[in-house]
């Protein structure tokens, strides 16, 4: 055992002396986490989608047309839209082609006159064919605006129409008709002067597990990272395990392993030394990434026992997997090839690149049966869903079963190879 620990310590010292490659690989999960936060942080962290950019072309240049943009840029709609004025349709086409706008709204010349005269006043709506989400929402908003405009107009027109009818009939109004017309004007005036009732018609969103409206992951970036960081860490550890195992492969190709085996320490100590080195290094790096997560990304590392239980299981699996591929491969290229393919397939299935929640049901159930998927979901269960250790039995069973199986096979094949 002492010999194995000495060998492991020696391997680790070599990594510490030349850490460039490992630091590069460590940068992958950290960089991805930052990119994902920059891309979706303000939106996903709040549980909401980004605002849609709507272009506005005012060909009318009147009081009514200049009021229209405020519907999109002010009030409750301001969180959903970003309004940008354009000078021509060709400018809009250019922005459409760059994917920088969801839709164009055109207020044509003569719009205000048509509205005031009660004639057909047409607003132009041009959705961007490249985008799918923004145009539909912009269309709804514009339809709502037309509804409000027409609704207010209709309220004012009702008493006007009654007067017109009386004038056309060339008769004196009855006292009831006078009262109705007065009431109509009063109502229209009241509604036109104050849209409080309308602005008070709201649709709040209640999300699961939240007492307050509009929660999602909350406004806490730590929650966002607690959700995305575990998958990236698991992916990064698989890559790092491969790089660490490749050092053992190169030792073997250079004859170092053969020289060690012929010393009194024997093959078992050499194999165990490799196992200890890989598991200890991976676990230490996992802890390091956890600390980075807590300090930089403000992830609350709750329930350390559960995190250690999952992390240790996964470190054993990642070590076993790459030790196995190294022990079966004849060249470093072969080991690199097999390791890369396995890491790629596992990462795709396990949900390292896309959250498994977005997978179809079959793939979602498969995701938690692969060790990286189970570990990732286990970390999320602890950090986000705040599940206790007792509730993680299934995840732990998957991670540890894979870990022990991979490590067992790796040791078996390595022993067989060394003895042959």
């Amino acid at each position, binding site marked *: 055992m002492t010999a194995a620990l000495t060998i492991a310590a020696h391997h680790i010292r070599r990594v510490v002396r030349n850490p*460039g*490659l490992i630091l*590069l*690989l460590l*940068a*992958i999960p950290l*960089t*991805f986490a930052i*990119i*994902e936060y*920059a*891309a*979706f942080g303000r939106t*996903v962290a709040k*549980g909401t*989608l*980004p605002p849609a*950019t709507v272009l506005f072309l005012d060909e009318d240049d009147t009081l009514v047309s200049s009021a229209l943009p405020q519907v999109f840029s002010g009030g409750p709609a301001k969180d959903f839209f970003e309004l940008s004025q354009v000078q021509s*349709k060709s400018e*809009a*086409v250019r922005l459409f*082609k760059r*994917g920088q706008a969801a839709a*164009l709204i055109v207020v044509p010349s003569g719009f205000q006159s048509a*509205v005031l005269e009660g004639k*057909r*006043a047409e*607003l*132009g709506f*041009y*959705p961007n*064919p490249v985008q*799918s989400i923004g145009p539909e*929402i912009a269309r*709804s908003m514009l339809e709502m605006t*037309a*509804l*409000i*405009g*027409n*609704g207010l*107009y*209709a309220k004012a027109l009702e008493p006007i129409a009654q007067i017109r009818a009386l004038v056309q009939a060339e008769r004196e109004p009855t006292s009831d008709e006078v009262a109705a017309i007065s009431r109509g004007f009063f109502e229209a005036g009241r509604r036109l002067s104050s849209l409080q*009732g309308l602005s*008070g*018609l709201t*649709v*709040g*969103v*209640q*999300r*699961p*597990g939240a007492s307050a409206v509009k929660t999602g992951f909350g406004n806490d970036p730590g929650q966002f990272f607690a959700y995305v960081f575990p998958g990236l860490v698991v992916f990064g550890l698989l890559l790092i395990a491969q790089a660490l195992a490749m050092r053992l492969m190169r030792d073997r190709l250079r004859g170092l392993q053969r020289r060690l085996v012929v010393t009194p320490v024997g093959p078992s100590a050499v194999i165990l030394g490799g196992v200890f080195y890989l598991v200890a290094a991976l676990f230490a790096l996992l802890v390091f990434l956890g600390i980075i997560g807590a300090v930089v990304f403000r992830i609350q590392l709750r329930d350390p026992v559960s995190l250690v239980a999952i992390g240790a299981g996964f470190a054993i699996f990642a070590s076993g997997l790459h030790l196995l591929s190294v022990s079966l491969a004849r060249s470093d290229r072969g080991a690199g*090839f097999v390791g890369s*393919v396995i890491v*790629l397939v596992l990462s*795709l299935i396990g949900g390292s*690149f*896309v959250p498994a929640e*977005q997978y179809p049901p079959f793939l979602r159930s498969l995701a938690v049966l692969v060790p990286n998927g189970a570990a990732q979901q286990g970390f999320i269960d602890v950090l986000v869903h705040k599940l206790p250790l007792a509730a993680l039995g299934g995840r732990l069973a998957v991670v540890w079963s894979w870990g022990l199986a991979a490590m067992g096979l790796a040791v078996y094949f390595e022993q067989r190879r060394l003895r042959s």
Partner: protein
Amino acid sequence: MRNVLVIAWSDIRRVLRERESLFWLFVGPLIFTVFFGLLFKPAAPSRPALAIVSQDAGPEVLRAISAMLEADGVSVSAQEAVVSGRTTLVVPAGAAEAIRAGKGVALTLHAGREETDGERSLRFKIQKALTRMYFTPPGSTAPADAAPIEGPITIAEGDLGVSRREITAGFQRSVPSYLVMFVFLNLLVSGAGIAEDRASGRLRRIAVAPVSRPEIILGKLLGRFAIGWIQIVYMLGFGLLVGIRWADHPWVFFAFVSLFALASASLGILLGTLFKDPDKCASTAVWVALVLAPLGGLWWPLELVGPSMRRLAYFTPTGWAMEGVNAMLAFGAGAWDVAPFALGFVLLFAVSFPLAARRLRI
């Protein structure tokens, strides 16, 4: 010239003999393209479903909202209570009376953990129905049905003379995205071959042959460029196989992605001259490619991210490539439309290649 071709051909043969290279040239891109193409395949348009729980005394609001939402393409069902996991709208007690009195009323939509585009669209439709109800309140003489309110303001929908193509989902998105990503990734990682050639003494052995230094570097570039071409043709072929619609100007498209491959190859060689250790070079290349891929909009459509990230894409070669490719696939853009991005590749090549040639230590 013959020496350049010999060096290039030697590099191509070496790449095509390595299983790992073959995997990342042909199998890996296919796995990614098929996986994400199927995962995000365009969903058939379906009516969004909404359950409504009315806590109001009368059925007026429930009926009115249901009628309006049904007319707006929403499948509505009345429920007694909120069911977990089902999008449900709760109409509070006193809603009809509040609307009748022109007062505000707060409805609650019980939704999923994070907002989806379907949910946002639904919210706007509900808000629209409420707006319509405000002007035709329950109990008023005007019926609160789904008929539009009469008035002078109408909406005329048109297009700006560009044809619509679906480029945000399925293979139509995954094939061009992963074409760009794997051309960039493989050519950047190919720089590790330069580091390996130097470390193994292969470069020295070539140098003692009767070849000039410019021939060596041109041969290395040509070999990598050819690998990029193989990747492009392979992905284009796969795209045709799965029936995606390509650009209206195929030769412009091919020239554009070829120029991208040339710039990527020279970047890869430059990277190879910066490292002694091939492993570190390859890892750095992977890291650079994987960072620039999402920044350039290869992993997710840029419409999903915020404005700052969208702007950032214009500073990355992957962003130039994807913007150009998108413009050609979505709008049938021609040479002039993508010229600014192509110019970016030319500049990148003009800077990185001489630098790589200067730095290359044999």
